[in-house]
């Protein structure tokens, strides 16, 4: 599989179908795996593929300096590829300028990440070329949201207490934002100050406002790649927030972000039949 990947990268670069291949690299065999940008065919052997390839590389597709390189190929896992659909819907990339290399994935990490436990996209579906063989396991929605369910089982006061303790640790390093493939705004709303929408201070107030905003801006968009939580230096489990929205979208509108390129984005579309049991 890894050889196939390197071969494909070589080909794409040699045939000048793309100018850069965004993949995974590793400085030393036991060292951590990190994003890697291959611009010369002969460097393709630096690419790696193993259970440490956590990053969702599609985050780089919208970056100015990466775009400047020209057409790109990006290595994606089943969970990552959905962002491409969303980005396309939101006019952030021209699908034809991106060559999507899908990697069949048995799960990342050892033991696999929580998201991998309930993964139903071991094999990418939207890729231009997919490497590896595996079958998908349909995961019932309930199972996908088991962690959320468990959390929601706690009484509201406890949930509030939990977040007060967790968010108290947030230092506003914005790793969650920077790593998110769908946080592509040129000027993040938290940096807006005429008027200031969110306190920039890493206080509970500012942190609640920030994390509510970050999560809600992903409503109907988040594809649950889980990068925001993975990279949080102080270990705040942001996936709970994202999931609450994802589940609401699935429950209320049968919508899963990035799932179907033909479906219009959730926010910004509507139906007269939309539920409103909470509106008096």
């Amino acid at each position, binding site marked *: 599989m890894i050889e196939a990947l390197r071969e494909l990268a070589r080909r794409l670069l040699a045939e000048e179908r793309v100018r850069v291949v965004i993949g995974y690299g590793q400085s030393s065999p036991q060292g951590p795996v990190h994003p890697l940008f291959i611009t010369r065919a002969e460097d393709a052997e630096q690419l790696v593929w193993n259970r440490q390839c956590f990053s969702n590389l599609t985050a780089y597709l919208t970056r100015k300096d990466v775009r400047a390189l020209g057409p790109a190929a990006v290595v994606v896992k089943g969970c990552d590829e959905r962002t491409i659909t969303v980005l396309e819907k939101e006019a952030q990339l021209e699908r034809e300028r991106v060559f999507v290399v899908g990697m069949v994935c048995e799960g990342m990490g050892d033991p696999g990440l929580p998201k991998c436990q309930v993964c139903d996209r071991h094999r990418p579906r939207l890729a231009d070329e997919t490497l590896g063989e595996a079958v998908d396991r349909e995961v019932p929605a309930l199972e996908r949201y088991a962690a959320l369910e468990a959390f929601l089982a706690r009484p509201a006061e406890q949930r509030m207490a939990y977040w007060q303790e967790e968010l108290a640790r947030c230092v506003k390093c914005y790793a969650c934002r920077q790593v998110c493939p769908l946080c592509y705004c040129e000027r993040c709303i938290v940096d807006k*100050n*005429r*008027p*200031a929408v969110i306190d920039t201070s890493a206080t509970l107030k500012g942190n609640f406002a920030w994390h509510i905003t970050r999560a809600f801006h992903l409503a109907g968009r988040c594809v649950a790649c889980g990068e925001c939580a993975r990279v949080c230096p102080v270990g705040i489990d942001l996936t709970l927030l994202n999931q609450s929205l994802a589940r609401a979208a699935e429950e209320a509108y049968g919508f899963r972000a990035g799932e179907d390129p033909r479906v219009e984005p959730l926010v910004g579309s509507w139906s007269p039949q939309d539920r409103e049991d909470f509106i008096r």
Partner: protein
Amino acid sequence: MTAPPVSADPATAPNLYLPDLMEVLEVQQHTADTKSVRLRFRNEIAAKRFSFRVGQFGIFSAFGSGEATFNICSSSTWKDYIEFCFRRTGMVTDALWEVDKDDTIGFRGPYGNGYPMEKWRRKHLIFLGGGIAMPPIRCAIWYALEHRDEYGEITIIYGARSTKDLVFADDLARWAQYDGVQVIRCVDPGGETPDWDGEVGFVPEVLKRADVRSDNSVALVVGPPIMIKLTMPLLTRMGLVDRDIYTSLESRMKCGVGKCGRCNCGPVYLCKEGPVFTLEQLKALPNDY
């Protein structure tokens, strides 16, 4: 080895960031988006303690919105008030735009090195300014005019995008009244009006055209990066040496006292070792400002 003993006793040391409260004496609007404000210390003692060198800057507070850095554009010889000039570009300047006579704003400073007016004595002075960069020149001009006999001929070339963008137009007129002072106002091509009696063209061109005395001269050039870039070589060609060509750098600053790391540029912290540099020093700086 452990840390050296603390230099000052924090118990008695003043709070670096605590501003003085200033009373707004007067607000003057210059263009659609620039105003200058005249301030007086509300606290007598602070007023007496205070002194500054032209070219230094202050950090001004609109309480509730924050602080912003501006050059003190009045002359250090004017004792009972200071002035600063700002363009409306952000949250703080939005708030400053709202201030009116008798309102209160905060002031910290003076900060920075300022102009070596003593070193400039007995020299001809060339002031070149563009747009909103007039204030940092204005303070020096007034200083020089207040010590008229200590300085040689004075040439002032000030350019703005259009006639509507000239700040301190009234000062320009008054300066022209002084002996040995040449004031050349110019606007970018297209920025003139039918009744415009100044020059038309960019500052560097106008400088080329103008008859400016360049022997035994120092020049102060303040303006947008592009203008500085184009003007400096002309001055060199006119025979000025790098250490006689001065400029004042704009920078994003927060603390003003060399701590917040914001204004760091290569080896220097602009807030403490700047903002005034000679071309000589500028050439030594990395291109990071």
